[in-house]
């Protein structure tokens, strides 16, 4: 068993940080960010929707809510269209400087809570 756990630990440590965006604990809620930009890519997808939001000087990967929750709150699939303007309020990922988890998103003047 000692060897097994050693091997498992080695594998766990040998791989770099992977993409993941579920819990809120990986995001720094002490640094609330308010971004307005243009949607360059959107996914109304499980387990979480996302937009790639271009703001001056940077493109953020913005993690949204599961599509079932967004639909339930009136944020339809076709609201997330590339080219549209969007405002998000959220928190940056502690490990990935390009990722943000959105607390709410405003599209066409309509704000949807995502948590």
């Amino acid at each position, binding site marked *: 068993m000692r060897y097994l756990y050693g091997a498992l630990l080695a594998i766990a440590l040998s791989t770099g940080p992977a993409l*993941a965006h579920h819990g809120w604990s990986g995001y720094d809620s002490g640094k609330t960010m308010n971004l307005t930009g243009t949607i360059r890519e959107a996914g109304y*997808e499980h387990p979480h929707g996302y937009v790639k939001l271009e703001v001056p000087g940077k493109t953020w990967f913005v993690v949204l809510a599961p599509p079932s929750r967004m639909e339930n709150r009136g944020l339809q699939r076709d609201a997330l269209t590339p080219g549209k303007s969007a405002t998000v309020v959220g928190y940056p990922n502690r490990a990935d400087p390009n990722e943000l988890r959105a607390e709410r998103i405003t599209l066409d003047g309509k704000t949807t809570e995502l948590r």
Partner: protein
Amino acid sequence: MIHNPQGAAWLVWLESSAVAVAMRQWLWLYPAVEVLHIAGIAALVGGAVMFDLRLLGVSRGLPVAALAAHLLTWSRVGLGLMAISGALMFTAHATEWAENPAFRVKMLLIIAAGLNAWAFHRWPFRSVARWDREVPTPPRARVAAVLSIALWLSVITCGRLLAYL
């Protein structure tokens, strides 16, 4: 809608398949598959741990062979549910999961748990007639029980962690 997975060819193929697209896009498919996955682990780990506790000396009046026939059958059903639902969830983000350290560790732990169950049936369980009821179980059976509990709890831990790492 652009989805452009990067990685090994077979993972990209899997992630671009119709099943993977449905998993990502259909509103209620992913949550439904998650329900199956949780039901599967309840049956699998529930059955296995109840059996392991008997091996460790809890409820010695219950016959081990009959418990194995009952509980471990449902554990196998649970394993089947987990494999099917797990494979469906894997396809949805195959390239991402394959790189996830918690996912890799989880797969190794499942193999280890399987080998442990196989070894238990191959060796100590053969003599179950001699310790079926009211007598202490052999040390090797107890070791298998402790390993089983530890491994399955670790599998659950990795399953949760892979959403956070």
